[in-house]
């Protein structure tokens, strides 16, 4: 009997829940029609492993919307927990409940790729501030990004290494979308330029013991080692172990190595060279500092630019996703993260610089 009663109670609760869900849908649609508001979404990981970047991107985008202060734009934010399923849920929710016309997000390439078909199908613009996977290029007409893809950095890195007359390269990278994407492109480009990949090693994202891989790399006797890392802890552990194992090769790395903590390793990291996207503008750095009281973390500037692009499209008179999309393809401006001009795939070219560790500080080299 007790279970019977419980079952009925559950049904009632469910009924209430459903009702709550439905009313919400109706009210938001009503306001929609009355005021002709253009709803813009922001989505990204606000909890979980990538929360730091997600929140930074949200803050960056919000900064742009607050500055523009458009009366007919309404912003909604959704957490995607860096999970593909959550990204699909968030996208569905924003498209059908909030009726968004454009979305800034997601950060993680996997989440962006999962949300892309829904954006495409519903003619909603999706601008990612951080997804670098090459697959995003072909994700669809409505999919843009303000961060250059892996191919940009990969080609730049391969070119740099080749220009420095290295011929034997060892690669060590995180076994995730970012690491794999970058490594594949570097391998292709570097081989094309006449170099040879003598070692190709991966490590699990977030791990801190790469001695096995580094020992193998040492045996392969490369002239240069290129490291792809995207967590500060792994970067520090890696660089420390490179010295420990006694690898003689010069060390290069992706922007993930550009974290203040590696400087604490002192003498041993001197001369480490990092390929990195062009740093954010001084103006944006100041604005972010004034608004949030801290240094702008990675991707805040890219998110700011994504939001700016949407705002500019709306100011030009675009009201639907389709119009915003058309406006974006014809747009060109100098943003916080560099020059923004979307090509036919919705990608930006982006610029890269070399950063070297010199006397315990990161020094940007002139190209």
């Amino acid at each position: 009997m007790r279970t019977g009663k419980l079952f009925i109670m559950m049904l009632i609760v469910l009924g209430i829940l459903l009702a709550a869900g439905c009313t919400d849908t109706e009210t938001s649609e009503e306001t929609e029609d009355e005021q002709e508001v253009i709803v813009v979404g922001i989505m990204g990981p606000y909890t979980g492993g990538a929360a730091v970047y997600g929140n930074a991107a949200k803050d960056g985008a919000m900064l742009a919307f607050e500055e523009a202060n458009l009366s007919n734009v309404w912003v909604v934010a959704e957490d995607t927990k860096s999970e593909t399923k959550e990204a699909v849920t968030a996208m569905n929710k924003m498209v059908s409940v909030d009726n968004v016309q454009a979305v800034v997000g997601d950060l993680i390439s996997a989440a962006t790729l999962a949300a892309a078909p829904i954006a495409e199908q519903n003619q909603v613009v999706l601008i990612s501030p951080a997804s670098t996977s090459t697959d995003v290029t072909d994700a669809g007409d409505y999919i843009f990004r303000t961060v250059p893809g892996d191919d940009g950095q990969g080609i730049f890195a391969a070119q740099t290494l080749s220009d420095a007359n290295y011929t034997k390269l060892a690669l060590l990278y995180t076994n995730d979308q970012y690491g794999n994407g970058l490594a594949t492109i570097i391998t292709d480009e570097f081989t094309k330029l006449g170099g040879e990949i003598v070692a190709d090693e991966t490590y699990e994202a977030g791990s801190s013991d790469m001695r096995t891989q580094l020992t193998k790399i040492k045996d392969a006797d490369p002239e240069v080692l290129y490291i792809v890392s995207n967590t500060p802890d792994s970067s520090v552990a890696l660089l420390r172990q490179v010295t420990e194992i006694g690898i003689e090769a010069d060390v290069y790395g992706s922007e993930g190595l550009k974290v203040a903590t590696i400087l604490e390793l002192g003498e041993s990291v001197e001369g480490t060279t990092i390929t990195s996207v062009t740093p954010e503008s001084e103006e944006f750095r100041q604005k972010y500092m004034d608004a949030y009281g801290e240094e702008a973390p990675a991707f805040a500037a890219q998110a700011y630019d994504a939001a700016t692009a949407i705002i500019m499209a709306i100011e030009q008179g675009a009201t639907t996703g389709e119009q915003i999309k058309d406006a974006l393809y014809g747009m060109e401006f100098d943003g916080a993260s560099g020059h923004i001009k979307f090509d036919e795939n919705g990608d930006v070219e982006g610029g890269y610089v070399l950063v070297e560790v010199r006397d315990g500080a990161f020094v940007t080299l002139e190209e």
Partner: protein
Amino acid sequence: MIISAYQTHIFVLIFIYIILAVSLNLALGYTGLLNLGHVAFFGIGAYTSALLAIEGMPYLAAMISAGLFASIFGYLLVRATDKLKGDYLAMATLGFSFVVYSLLLNLRDITRGAMGIPGIPKPSIMGLAIRSNDQYLIFVVVVCTISVYLMYRTVNSPFGKLLEANRDNALSLRVLGKNTFVLKYKAMMISAFFAGISGSLYAHYITFIDPTSFYISELILILTIVIVGGLASIRGSIAATVVIIYVPEILRTLDLPGSVLGPVRQALYAVILIAILMIRPRGIFGKVDLE
């Protein structure tokens, strides 16, 4: 449609997870196999179906293959862990989850590794393309109903009673001349089969899969559903799936300031689950305790 595409989406997820949760309950609740490798079957199903469909196999065939392939792994898992019980079985099956995750991540030529598989085609059955959320919902409801009905029949058959006997007292069952190994692998194969089917439904619905979609957080989610719903109770698993997938969505409608939105929702969600388990320690409709 009366409900929005968003509501439809939530229901699609609920039905996919009902198949997954009920199939786990078959192994965990009914047969007493403390299986933490269920998420691996889900992943194997998703990858098998996605890869076959991309190669051009018709959807239904790909879906069935996904189930069969997962159930082969179910057999192998029981074969390898036959001598283990309780916590030890849990450890070994958890290891199986890690191994499968690792394979998905490192068999790059087949699975594209961490890059994941984008652009998985939406199903099309006998020339009937399933495109919108509404159509997918109808399709999922049909598959879910058939699956749950089959599993319901299984656990209520004489064979199902033997499974429960194996859970409650495997030794006595062996004394009575029953081969518990056969029972266990049959149960695990059925369980894995339906996990594979739900993996296939998931992959073709989300249209993008990568190894992280089939890892610890997913495992915890389905274990939570089964435990909150109650062991050895199909309607418990169904009710719990609805609660566990739907509650976070209700929390979405709370108007929270952006800065605390993520964490507050997560915390509220946890409180609700703890409350359920405090009121009903065996889960909503649970009948048995696992040793």
